[in-house]
């Protein structure tokens, strides 16, 4: 199996994530799509590390995971707070900045 297939998979996962972010309203789903995009990027990093035969891509993947974990903590906290105050997890309802 060609190693390029990993990159194709990464690109497909990223696209699915990006489309999800744009089209879905539920904040939780949007959030999961962001995770999907991050992991697609991770997959690409690891694949490139493999192709180039060094460890740098793998190291970056670990960094991404740590950052993603932090992001989940903060993001979920925000979503939960919004849900508590507005009884809705729709991102379209959270458009108060416009006014």
């Amino acid at each position: 199996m060609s190693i390029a297939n990993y990159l194709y998979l990464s690109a497909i996962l990223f696209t699915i994530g990006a489309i999800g972010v744009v089209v879905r309203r539920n904040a939780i789903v949007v959030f999961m799509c962001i995770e999907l995009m991050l992991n697609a990027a991770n997959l690409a990093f690891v694949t490139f590390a493999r192709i180039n035969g060094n460890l740098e891509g793998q190291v970056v993947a670990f960094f991404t995971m740590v950052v993603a974990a932090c992001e989940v903590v903060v993001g979920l906290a925000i979503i939960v707070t919004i849900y508590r105050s507005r009884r809705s997890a729709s991102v379209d309802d959270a458009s108060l900045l416009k006014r």
Partner: protein
Amino acid sequence: MLQTSANLVWFIALPLFSSALLLLAGKKANSWGHVLATTVSASTFTIGIIEFLAMQARPEENRAVGQKLFTWISVGAFNVDASLLLDQLSICFVLLITGVGTLIHIYSISYMSHDLDRRRFFAYLNLFIAAMLLLVLGDSYLNLYVGWEGVGLASYLLIGFWNQKPAYATAAKKAFVANRVGDVGLSLAIMIAFATFGDVSFSGIKAQAESASTTQLTAIGLMLLLAACGKSAQFPLQSWLGDAMAGPTPVSALIHAATMVTAGVYLITRSSFIFDEAPIAQIMVLVVGAVTLLFGAIIGTAKDDIKKALAASTMSQIGYMILATGLGPIGYAFAIMHLLTHGFFKASMFLGAGSVMHGMKDEVNMRKYGGIGKFMPITALTFGLGYLAIIGVPPFAGFYSKDKIIETALNAGGIKGIALGIATLLGAAITAFYMTRVVILTFFGNERWGHKDEPHESPALMLIPISLLSLGSIASGYLLYQGKSLVNWLEPVVNPLKEHHAEELFSPNAVSAMTLTVVAIGIFLAVRKYRGNQLDSAPEKVSIFTTAARKDLFQDSLNEKAFMLPGQSLIKRLLQIDLLVIDGFVRSVGAVSVGAGTKLRALQSGYVRSYALMMVVGALALIATVWIVTA
């Protein structure tokens, strides 16, 4: 090397401090403000006396003293210290300002007692004293300039003291604007002096004056003359003085008769080292003096407002002084002598006019006076003494000081001497005419005030200062003239011995005889015209000359046609340019920003998803660009 005297700063600090205190303390100071101001003024007079006695005790070459207050400006080669200089010339002014000033403070306590704003009035009076003392004590043109502007401000504030009346506020503005024209002259003179000499102090310029080119000295001299014209109400900037009579009468006496308006004479005398080397400027000084002394005298003959008649007379008398300063080294001392005697007799007459107004319910029209002499005997007596002094009857003050000027003018030689002699003699005759007119219309003749209330004599607090001033108008001339005391006293400053007047065409006695003859003619004409019963309003059918004199010889109309209206239309054009071009540019920049903002605002929907879409599209566009560029 100048000796230092630590006292000088108090001349300015005391009244300045008192003025600030009275203005800042507000109504709390209403009960004691006038006492403080008068005390401060009297203390400056006391310091003046002490300094004068100390100065007299010193040998002649060490009489001047100075005091450096602080380094004011220090930029490269340009160094100006804020320092004071008290020499033989300044001390004359210091004593006049503080002495007459104190008497007028005392007078004002009573005169202004019914005014709700008396405290503010006294604060301004003290401000004036401080600024005027700075003017005469500054040791450089720049220090003088600060005082010069300061007295202009005080004069403006005091002319417009009753600014609730629009006409008075306008008079204040007029005085301020006319003074600004002169002030521009002074600042230009300072700039030219700095460009020429690299120095603005009197001593520094005096040392270099003889080596400078005549052109530059003439330029400085003419600019200084312009400044003097503005401040001293000389032709062609004289029109403000008549309107300045809108201020309270003590102000007219102090600022617009005795002290501030004589600042121009001080300036020219102080700058004698420039004018002595610039003959053209000196001739212009003579012309201005001669024209103004006749101008003022002619205007004085037609005014029915007692204060305006006296103001016209002030203008004319200052014309005499300016003319004397233009006569060169020999004239300066006589100019100062006339200035001092004039300070006494004119202040006493103004205060007398104020006393009459006080007794006549603030009526100023002399046609509504008449026969006041028997109701106000002390005022009439003191006014009469001032009258005898100004027309120059011996042995009153004006006889000595004015005769000396006429004598010097007659002896100037050539056509100059004849022209100036005729001008000064004619001026003396007209002076006698209009002053006699004032006295007859006010104190003699039928009673024309048209109401039952009889005029009453003013309180003692007003009469005492008037009496002291009229003592000055009796004695000051003799004291200053006797043994050439003032001439010798001022000699180190104005250096009159540099020029030798060999032949004297007219002896002092001949001049006195001529003067007294023309004065007698003036009195005779006035008595013939104004004796007996008068109407209570001015006659309407009058000759064209009277009409002209009543309208200040059309100076106001000329100023309006030649300067005010073109100025206003220029300003209107500039305003249009400002609105269309400059404002238009600035506004269109704003309009573009606002329009662009309105358009771009549509992009901001507030929906997270649309922002995300934009980011995706943007990222794709970026990738595409990179692809295209690198491929």
